[in-house]
């Protein structure tokens, strides 16, 4: 041993490899960190630069559309898309209000109504003839479908009246499950028979003609709808996407996938659909030409809504619908400027106010504007009128319902659950619908904090302080709901609290939507909360919710049936708007308010937040095709986005610093380990021996 055991200069190969290994570890980790920083360094935008620079609208919907089949789709989110792809005979004027104006869209001219005798087969085999009506609709003759592989050569073909008739036939097909089919079923001649034939037949024969919807033998752009009774509401239905022309080729080509492959002739077509991710609408080159309206309501010009008057529609080349389920995510995205507007039907976005219910200053600074629009809807509590305790038209139970009605404080409800963004409902009809009476005050919706009257009524009903004298126990009200999530539970809790002030015990029976529907169907419900949105701005579309024959499975979920009300309804249904109709509606109101099967609570106010780079924003309670009128100031948006999305690397640096500083003692430990003397007395301060 020349040099002693200490030095080991020849230990090269092995060590070199060990060193190389160590170096590789270091290099890899540095690379990972750098990659992370590089990844973070680039923009946090979820869009491509092209999209960001183009005239593109960035919007959001909360879930994948269940279906984009215009004959089936019925939800608000879906309508935002469907209505842009499937234009209808009529459309609502974008700017005009009070009243809403229907203008021709695909229609070439106003339909012609003629009196038409209709033969009706009675059940006993006899026939009778009634006075019916025939509407003749004529389409524009230059309409074409979008280009799509379902057509020969992939070129969109010409649209004729046949395509609209096809849509009617689809509505009558029970397997399509068209939600508005019941509106037609008892009115269009031959509809029930046609529908039945479909149900029976194995193969569906769409070539067969329906008696009540006929093609004009001479004009390929004209078809006739024959009704067995007057139905003035038909024109509104011609503004809903159910009656939009559909290509039979597309339905048959895509089959089960048709709900995800819409083929229409609207301003946009569906160019890309990534489930759970995004849905992109692109300008349809085959769209029928339309321009931005040049007349609006007073004040529209000042609001800049006429700046684009006369310009070709649509004003943006693309609409990107981000499908965002979590409200947290979409809110974050919105605040970063990556969404033009905050979602339409999302409660959470309404929480952006200062104390005085105005937009918070932070958002205002960011250029967000707030819009509130009373929606054409009504939310109500309904008793099951077949319920032995709460239902029926007996005086006793009527008083019980009235008492409960009086206990529900609409103002508190609005404050707590709608943050003030709703108006209290007095009756079925919402503002904006003919027959709505702003001066009407429902006597059973007048809340007083002492509940004096409610308690009196309750006592009169035989339940003093909510106690059933027969049993000595409290009356129980089963509140059936679908509150499986937190927000639902909150609202159930608040409502229960209100009713329980009466002394009645409220028991929440939450169930899943399917079980809830089954309960309603079987009439096993006792007390529910429900809402209705207008299909069209006619009072019939609301008051029919209490029409006896519309009981479950119809839309009358209260199972309310008052012969007097039903008689008035039948009378009012076919009337034209005017004082006479108003009078009948007033009578219906008096009857139904007294019976108190419903407790109308609110008419919702939709609140939307829009950035100032979005132009031509004006809400419409019925039309969902507004997107084609919107315009985008792309430069403004981009500069804002850039300013708001600068990553903050300080915490990362701080973290790195902490790790470095924190590992210094560790390095010292390593040093000590390698250099320590074995003898304890000599070594001193070995960190790891303690």
């Amino acid at each position: 041993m020349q040099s002693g055991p200490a030095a080991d200069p020849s230990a090269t190969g092995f060590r070199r490899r060990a060193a190389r290994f160590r170096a590789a570890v270091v290099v890899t980790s540095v690379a990972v960190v750098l990659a992370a920083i590089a990844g973070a360094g680039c923009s946090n935008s979820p869009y491509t630069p092209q999209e960001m620079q183009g005239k593109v609208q960035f919007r959001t919907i909360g879930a994948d559309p269940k279906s984009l089949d215009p004959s089936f789709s019925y939800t608000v989110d879906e309508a935002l898309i469907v209505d842009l792809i499937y234009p209808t005979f009529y459309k609502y004027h974008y700017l005009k209000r009070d009243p809403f104006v229907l203008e021709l869209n695909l229609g070439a001219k106003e339909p012609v109504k003629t009196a038409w005798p209709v033969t009706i087969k009675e059940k006993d085999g006899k026939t009778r003839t009634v006075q019916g009506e025939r509407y003749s609709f004529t389409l524009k003759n230059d309409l074409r479908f979008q280009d799509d592989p379902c057509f020969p050569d992939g070129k969109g073909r010409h649209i004729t009246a046949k395509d609209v008739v096809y849509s009617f036939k689809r509505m009558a097909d029970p397997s399509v499950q068209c939600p508005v089919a019941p509106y037609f079923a008892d009115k269009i001649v031959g509809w029930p028979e046609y529908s039945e034939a479909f149900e029976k037949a194995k193969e569906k024969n769409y070539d067969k003609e329906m008696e009540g919807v006929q093609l004009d033998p001479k004009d390929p752009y004209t078809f006739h709808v024959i009704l067995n009774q007057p139905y003035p509401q038909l024109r509104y239905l011609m503004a809903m996407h159910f009656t939009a022309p559909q290509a039979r080729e597309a339905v048959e080509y895509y089959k089960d996938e048709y709900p995800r492959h819409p083929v229409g002739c609207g301003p946009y077509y569906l160019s890309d659909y990534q489930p759970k991710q995004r849905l992109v609408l692109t300008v349809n080159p085959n769209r029928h030409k339309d321009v931005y309206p040049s007349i609006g309501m007073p004040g529209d010009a000042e609001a800049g809504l006429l700046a684009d008057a006369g310009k070709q529609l649509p004003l943006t080349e693309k609409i990107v619908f981000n499908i965002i389920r979590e409200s947290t995510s979409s809110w974050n995205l919105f605040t970063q400027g990556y969404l033009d507007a905050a979602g339409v039907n999302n409660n959470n976005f309404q929480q952006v106010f200062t104390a005085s219910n105005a937009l918070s200053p932070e958002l205002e600074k960011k250029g967000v504007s707030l819009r509130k629009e009373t929606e054409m809807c009504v939310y109500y509590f309904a008793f099951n009128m077949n319920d032995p305790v709460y239902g029926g038209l007996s005086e006793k139970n009527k008083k019980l319902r009235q008492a409960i009605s009086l206990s529900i404080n609409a103002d508190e409800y609005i404050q707590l659950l709608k943050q003030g963004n709703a108006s209290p409902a007095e009756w079925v009809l919402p503002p904006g619908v003919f027959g709505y009476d702003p001066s009407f005050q429902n006597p059973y919706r007048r809340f007083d904090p002492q509940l004096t009257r409610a308690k009196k009524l309750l006592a009169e009903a035989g339940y003093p302080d909510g106690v059933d004298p027969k049993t000595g126990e409290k009356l129980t009200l089963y509140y059936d709901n679908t509150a499986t999530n937190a927000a639902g539970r909150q609202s159930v809790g608040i409502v229960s609290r209100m009713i329980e002030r009466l002394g009645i015990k409220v028991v929440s029976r939450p169930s899943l939507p399917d079980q809830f529907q089954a309960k309603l169907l079987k009439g096993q419900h006792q007390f529910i909360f429900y809402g209705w949105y207008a299909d069209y701005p006619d009072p019939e579309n609301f008051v029919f919710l209490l029409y006896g024959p519309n009981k479950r499975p119809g839309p009358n979920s209260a199972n309310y049936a008052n012969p007097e009300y039903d008689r008035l309804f039948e009378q009012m249904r076919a009337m034209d708007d005017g004082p006479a109709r108003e009078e009948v509606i007033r009578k219906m109101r008096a009857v139904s308010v007294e019976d108190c099967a419903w407790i109308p609570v609110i008419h919702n106010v939709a609140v939307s937040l829009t950035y100032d780079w979005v132009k031509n924003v004006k809400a419409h309670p019925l039309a969902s095709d507004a997107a084609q009128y919107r315009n985008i100031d792309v430069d403004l948006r981009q500069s804002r986005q850039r300013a708001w999305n600068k990553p903050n690397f300080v915490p990362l640096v701080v973290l790195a610093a902490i790790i470095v500083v924190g590992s210094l003692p560790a390095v010292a430990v390593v040093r000590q380990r390698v250099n320590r003397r074995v003898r304890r007395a000599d070594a001193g301060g070995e960190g790891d021996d303690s």
Partner: protein
Amino acid sequence: MSFFQSDFFLNLVPCCVVALLLFAIWRAGKQPLWAEAYRRLRRNKVAIFALVIIGLYGTLALLESLGTTDKASQTRITLLDRIAQKTGALAVQERYYSAPLATMTTGEANPQPLKAPGQHLLGTDGVGNDVLLQTLKGARTAFLIGGGTLLISTPLALLFGLMAGYYGKWQDDLIQYIYGVLASIPTILLLIALILVLGRGPVQICVALGITSWVGLCRLTRGETLKHRDREYVRGAKALGVSDFGILTRHILPNLLPVVIISLTLGFSGLVLQESILAYLGLGVGGNIGSWGNMIDAARDELAREPVIWWNLTSASVALFILVLAFNFLGDALRDAIDPRLRS
């Protein structure tokens, strides 16, 4: 089923769990081997702290499980409610959200003064309930789910594990196959499927969690049994003529208990965490039972508000975190105390 859905039953479970815990501690004190572990545990400050915390939560669960129906309002008033009523602000229901120690409601368009201004330590939730009280009440659900599940899964796992390990042969093959099948379905998917099929509710969740969680313990029991089966003391007992049952219950089972107890301790915390995730997926205990899972679930909306309603999420998360942390620390400490070989 209705009995199992009844309040009585649901309250029985946490009571049983707490009673079992107390019994186990009492018994353990009498067994020298456990007493030895005890001594080691006592020296571990973290473990004692964890035990105290678990004891506190257990007390809360017990207080929330015991109660009477109030004649006047016909609602159940638990001991915890009574204590809350005595303290004042805890039991006061406000009209809406309010921030911790706030004097006005929060998030409302027109904030209203509170009934108990500045006294809600953790604020109030959307219905105006005191968040602190709600958080405390959540302990019961945690014990209900965690304990209920373990009450279902532990006997099952021990029985099958012992059988598989001890008898071997076809019994082993069969049991291994059963849990092999169950274990190859990812837990969360199996849970989802089970709850969708069984329906929602605390008992269903316990059953579903029980089905998914017995596998781990069963595998552990089987492995340990296998180890002990060929130990000399078991052979000696066999040679003495002790029956299989006697060997399993008197010889093998007591020797498995340490491992089982460690695994149960750690398993409990896992179950509590799973409940909150199920609640988040909308498969939780349901609306009528206050749980941390429900509170966290509510936060997904509350966090999107401006101002952010953070106290609900924070309280529930912290309450959950502390309990789980305590169980994890206790589990680690138990492992060290019971099985010193495993100490590093």
